[in-house]
């Protein structure tokens, strides 16, 4: 039986060697509850709480500090071909001003990280990777580049995400023209008093919105200006997690890692068409064979019948009592109005509608396999 902590076991003292983002003082001023995340002091929630923050993002606009994530420019002759050896994405076919979701993969077909890559110019790319993986990711990339290619990390830049149905209208007040961007467009804007911002119409909530790479020195002042807009509220990591779970988006380290393949994870779309001709990238042959034979397990959505959340690590059984998988992310979906989860189950039990049992605190709770997302995406395509 999985053991939980007592009532206040989550409250930990922040060690002093945590890194901070340029918005640290603002988070504290806003009453953010700071926690350690990927080596940074980050707000898990503000005084209104995760539920209110989550719901606000789904109906208005929510501002997230994601400056802990890694940003870098990869540029030089041969950069694209060399990067393509590490990922299943088609970057040659990516037009300047567009970005795509991709994966760093292992030789055995696992996932080192998931990330966004934008085409800035003929030989220039902009990468945004997960905070917990950034040092390893950038070392991995740098180690595989030919002479003459540079990987420049942007540790002096902050990253803000403004998400929700009103996010783009709010942002366009500062960056006129941003409203004409389509989902996954990337464009640079000169924002008065802020400097050059690199903006992508994307996010991690399932909502429309933008991610804004911005000089660290002006980031807090700009965040204050955005927060002064009536539609905007600050959102912490707690609601970021519940929003992405409802959107069916995997979290690296929970739902995908070096032991899960893109095929099993339902990320086959990230293996672009051109790359399926040659499969000439890390783990490509393994993935090709897995796609041919069919994966033995699949990442699926899970909807408990009752009110009890089932957390990561929960064992999944079929109705005959056989163990068929494990939950990798689970909790409460404020917009879904109840518990939701995702996890891996045996491929022959992964069909939508399949009844399953979740082993929670030594009891078996009925649930069903369901399609994801739990809340429809509202991207501006």
């Amino acid at each position, binding site marked *: 039986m999985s053991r939980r902590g*007592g009532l206040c076991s989550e409250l930990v003292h922040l060690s002093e060697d945590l890194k901070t983002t340029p918005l640290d003082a603002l988070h504290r001023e806003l009453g953010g509850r700071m926690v350690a995340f990927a080596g940074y002091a980050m707000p898990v929630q503000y005084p209104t709480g995760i539920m209110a923050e989550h719901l606000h993002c789904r109906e208005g606009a929510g501002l997230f500090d994601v400056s802990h994530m890694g940003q870098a420019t990869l540029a030089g002759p041969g950069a694209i071909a060399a990067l393509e050896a590490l990922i299943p994405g088609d970057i040659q076919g990516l037009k300047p001003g567009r970005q795509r979701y991709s994966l760093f993969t292992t030789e055995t077909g696992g996932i080192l990280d998931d990330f966004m890559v934008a085409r800035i110019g003929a030989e220039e790319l902009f990468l945004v990777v997960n905070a917990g993986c950034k040092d390893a990711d950038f070392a991995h990339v740098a180690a595989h580049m030919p002479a003459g290619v540079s990987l420049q990390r942007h540790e002096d830049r902050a990253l803000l995400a403004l998400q929700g149905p009103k996010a783009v209208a709010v942002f366009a007040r500062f960056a006129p023209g941003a409203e004409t961007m389509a989902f996954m467009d990337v464009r640079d804007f000169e924002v008065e008093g802020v400097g050059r911002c690199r903006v992508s119409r994307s996010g991690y909530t399932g909502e429309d919105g933008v991610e804004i790479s911005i000089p660290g020195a002006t980031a807090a002042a700009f965040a204050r200006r955005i927060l002064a807009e009536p539609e905007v509220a600050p959102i912490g990591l707690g609601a970021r997690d519940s929003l992405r779970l409802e959107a069916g988006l995997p979290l690296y380290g929970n739902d995908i890692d070096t032991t899960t393949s893109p095929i099993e994870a339902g990320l086959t779309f990230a293996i672009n068409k051109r790359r399926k001709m040659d499969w000439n990238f890390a783990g490509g042959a393994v993935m090709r064979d897995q796609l041919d034979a069919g994966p033995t397990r699949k990442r699926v959505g899970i909807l408990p019948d009752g009110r*009890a959340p089932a957390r990561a690590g929960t064992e999944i059984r079929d109705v005959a009592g056989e163990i068929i998988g494990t939950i990798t992310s689970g909790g*409460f979906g404020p917009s879904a109005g109840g518990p939701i989860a995702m996890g891996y189950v045996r491929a022959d039990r992964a069909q939508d509608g399949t009844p399953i049992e979740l082993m929670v605190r030594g009891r078996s709770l009925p649930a069903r396999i369901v399609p994801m997302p739990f809340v429809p995406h509202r991207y501006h395509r």
Partner: protein
Amino acid sequence: MSQTRYTRDHEWVRLDGNIATIGITHHAQEALGDLVFVELPEPGRDVATSEAVAVVESVKAASDVYAPLNGRVTETNPAIVEDPALVNRDAAGEGWFFRLTLADTAAFDALLDEAAYAAFVDAA
């Protein structure tokens, strides 16, 4: 006259005769955040001090609630199962969890009084 005492596990215990009413403290509900699920013990169950007897879940995480004393569960609060957020709104009142009938009330006196609990929270 009833008295209220506290545990280091952030529960409050109100004693009326040999009936103890147990809930979680205001501090605990604040630390947990929005509660979305509560599971309570079956009436009739005999519980021992420090035994995990109830569960509270916030959006983020699950936590155990321990029995603060030895006793038999005689009553639980269905209102918080129906509406877990009631614990957030009124942890020390309407948001109570369960009642225990105590065989022996002596252990109650060993629990923290209000000042000692406040000092414990401040030091944490």
